[in-house]
């Protein structure tokens, strides 16, 4: 009975994972489609056209590059701002903690429609021209919170005695940060940056409200969705997905390798230790 029960959970878990990936599989498969018109919802035939001629349709690649540009800039700024906030929250005492936490949390919980529309209201009232700048501003705004959460988690996991040891060993605050704190938090910051880029690149609603005439990749896709999404879009999206997935999987693999070599040397050391204690016993 318990055997069945044990496996039910595994089966359900696998099913859920499959469920998560079904649409991606569809997107990927359809990128090899060969539809007569632009309506890429049914399978017609196999073709590599979309992959070999990714920029064939006007506007696709331009919007793609725009999204990359905006992603890089907003991620860079948001990561710096968010990391600073995370440090302040974990390492320092200050008044107004509650409101700070609230202000950081709200962007993650607010519907994009509300955030996009309120920013639009701001820009309209200031008669600030809509375009790349406003989109970047918006992206930085909603990315900061996620960076804070990611870096804060990593920072809280840091052993405080490590920094004390550093100070004990003649490192002032700057040196401690440079040689101890930063190297240990860096993976968290990198992860946050990756997350931020993903959020920015894929953002539609907030961008749509504040882009004016600018076309980002998601905005292009939305527009195309009414008329028919070109196969190139599927190809580009699949490409992005594969690249992102590879990066993350490689990082996982590297960590796994490290764990394995650590385990191997721990096994060695345990064997050595046994020999040593035998030796010590015979000596004493």
């Amino acid at each position: 009975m318990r055997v069945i029960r044990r496996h039910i959970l595994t089966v359900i878990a696998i099913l859920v994972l499959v469920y998560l990936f079904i649409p991606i599989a569809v997107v990927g498969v359809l990128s090899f489609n060969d539809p007569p018109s632009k309506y890429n919802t049914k399978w017609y035939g196999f073709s590599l056209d979309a992959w070999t001629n990714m920029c064939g349709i006007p506007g696709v690649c331009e919007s793609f590059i725009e999204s990359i540009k905006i992603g890089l800039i907003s991620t860079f700024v948001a990561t710096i701002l968010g990391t600073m906030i995370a440090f302040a929250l974990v390492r320092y005492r200050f008044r107004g903690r509650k409101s700070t936490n609230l202000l950081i949390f709200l962007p993650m919980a607010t519907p994009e429609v509300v955030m996009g529309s309120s920013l639009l209201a701001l820009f309209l009232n200031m008669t600030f021209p809509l375009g790349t700048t406003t989109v970047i501003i918006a992206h930085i705004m909603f990315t900061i919170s996620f960076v804070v959460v990611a870096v804060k988690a990593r920072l809280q996991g840091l052993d405080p005695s490590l920094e004390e040891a550093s100070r004990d060993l003649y490192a002032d605050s700057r040196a401690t940060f440079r040689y101890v704190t930063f190297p240990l938090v860096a993976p968290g910051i990198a992860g946050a940056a990756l997350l931020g880029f993903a959020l920015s690149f894929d953002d539609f609603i907030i961008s749509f409200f504040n882009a004016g005439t600018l076309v980002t990749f998601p905005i292009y896709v939305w527009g195309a969705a009414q008329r028919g999404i070109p196969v190139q879009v599927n190809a580009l999206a699949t490409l992005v997905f594969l690249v992102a997935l590879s990066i993350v999987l490689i990082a996982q693999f590297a960590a796994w390798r490290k764990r394995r070599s650590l385990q191997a040397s721990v096994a060695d050391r345990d064997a050595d230790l046994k020999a040593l204690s035998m030796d010590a016993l015979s000596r004493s």
Partner: protein
Amino acid sequence: MPPLISTSASASATPPQVAARKARTGYLLLLPGMGWLAVFFAIPFVTLIITSLQVPTGASGVYAPGFDIANYGEAISQYGNLYVRSFIYAGLATLFALIIAYPLAYFIAFRGGQWKGLLLVLVIAPTFASFLLRTYAWRTILADEGPVTGFFNALGVLPEGRILSTSIAVIAGLTYNFLPFMILPLFAALDKLDPRLIEASNDLYASPVTTFRKVVWPLSLPGVVAGTLLTFIPASGDYINAQLLGSITTRMIGSAIQVNFIQFRDYPIASALSVILMFIILIIVSIYIRRSGTEDLV
């Protein structure tokens, strides 16, 4: 004792100065980021409220500052039912997401072992692909002539004989899109749970079901609440799923806001709609904070 050469009468460490310096650094670190959020998240709400009270000047898209609360009345009378529908859809999607997410989160937390990292990557990975395209892909999967619709039709459970263009597709889409937002907080809470508590429960004569009810579920509640907030709230404002997978009868409040802003350029009405949505959400969040405080939010 040998003579001591000390430079100050009191303790020369001057702790209060050190503490003050530390607080100042803290504020300096906070300033840029929080400033950004204040200017581009908090203040816009003020402008949103201001805009919602503006009056038309006759020129299209141009409004003058005013205090026309009638805008709210108009907004509610025209679009009130959309709020109800949006919250119902979001609520159902959240419920389904919880049911689907919990087993996976439980599995990763307790059976994941050294594969936890990889499994979490697999959970997040779908978000690397454009969510518009993934939602659009459901059009293919749930197509009227497709196998999925055929299967459910054969079971006779489809009231309209199709899935697309009905609320079923919209809710299914919402559930799918926000699933990672439910899985991750659940996992975080379950991961913190000491597995020895389950062992202790078994040792004290509790069956697996009872153990779940009395030990695991209560301890996972913070994750459930967090996941619920992070799913329900964004879902209620979403309109992509409704537009791509639904029809006019499944319109959600988000598209009303979008249409009024972008197409009709009726900024006061659009802003009023947005303000109302935001306030409902703020009420929900404050109920949560009242019970659990703000430290666990971030």
